[in-house]
């Protein structure tokens, strides 16, 4: 049986599950936490569906805003222990990842280690998901200049950390390639 509400929600999940799922997987090293957050995001969207914007761009920003808010709240609650466990599980699981995925996960772990959740969310939304400073300002409630400053500092920290870690990433990638 169809209902406009049901159809609308299904369409929303179909349309945004992948990008929001990607964003959340980039925000935390724990897949189980990211999965929880994805469920939470759509649950909140479901509850707040009366506020769902019709404009696709506004809808996108609204959903990313919910996902970011849920992720920051969860990370503030001290779920980092789960992240560490997830990293440990991945290292000890013996499951070989393809080189591209290994590199992506190493980069994600570097991101998690280097940037605070707040800065991480800005960095990922800007550089991976294409939000500009103005859109991020609207999404986060900061001023555009504050967003730019934070993005600049976050970028500098990421590049510095990347320089330090590049060798390790290359080593992990080579290891994955050997076992792929």
């Amino acid at each position, binding site marked *: *049986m*169809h*209902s406009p*509400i*049901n159809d609308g*929600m*299904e369409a929303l*999940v179909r349309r945004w*599950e*992948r*990008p929001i*799922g*990607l964003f*959340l*997987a*980039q925000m935390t090293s724990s*897949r189980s936490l*990211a*999965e929880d957050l*994805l*469920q*939470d995001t*759509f*649950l909140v969207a*479901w*509850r707040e569906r009366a506020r769902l914007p019709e404009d696709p761009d506004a809808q996108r920003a609204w959903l990313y805003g919910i996902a970011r808010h849920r992720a920051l709240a969860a990370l503030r609650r001290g779920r980092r222990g789960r992240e560490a466990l997830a990293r440990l599980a991945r290292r000890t699981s013996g499951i070989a990842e393809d080189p*591209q*995925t290994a*590199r*992506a*996960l190493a*980069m*994600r772990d570097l*991101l998690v280690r280097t940037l605070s959740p707040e800065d991480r969310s800005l960095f*990922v939304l800007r*550089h*991976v998901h294409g939000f500009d400073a103005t859109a991020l300002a609207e999404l986060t409630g900061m001023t555009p200049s504050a967003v730019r400053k934070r993005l600049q500092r976050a*970028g*500098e920290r*990421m*590049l510095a950390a*990347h320089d330090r870690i590049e060798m390790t990433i290359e080593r992990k990638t080579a290891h994955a390639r050997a076992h792929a």
Partner: protein
Amino acid sequence: MPELMPEERLRQIAVALEAVPPVRMRPARRERRPRPFARRRLVVAVVALAVAAAGTATATGLLDHEAPKAFAPKVANLRDGRTADQHNVTLVVDAKTPDGRPAQVWVSPLHGSATGSCVAIVMDYSADPKSKDWGSRFAPGAACGSDRSGAVLADADGSRWVSHEGKAFMAETANAGDAARIVYHLADGTTVTAVPQHERYLTFIPYSLWEQAHWVVALDAAGHEIAMRKVPGTANLPG
């Protein structure tokens, strides 16, 4: 090799991050395969037996373990050959149907289960003989008593049940963990709340809404979400 500009290096980091495998929505575990005709008939037969046994028990005022005891091994045997321990059935939920009739959930351990799994048996002691779909279902992953091997909300299973007025409901039972309340958020914006007993709940969802996508949320005593699952609609699935 020329040194790359910071913007280009940031772009490369972003490209690497794009290959992080995204997470997906967890699928609900409700079984949605159409029930084969032969198996359906068997369930109906078992239900009829159980209802008859229960009717006798009710008539004599002995609403005890006998009906679920008789029921347990038959229900468990319907799936994957496992058997339930009929001498060890426990009442975990005492509820009411939307008609106000008694309905219960019993659990019985499965033989050979290393994880402490139980079969959950839903009994409607005064079922209308016309509502033959109603009577029993089971959740193979159900946790036994305080055993926490069953994931919260994940083992939900149900049976279609029809009220005296002909309204169809889905009766659902699942492991509730430490939840103080289970809230179904239905497609029309309404909610149905169940209060778990002994870490399990039994609730009745209007069938037309149960067929549509909905969310099930477990809340602790303070109102915090401790588990949730999205249940895709079944109304438009083939078969």
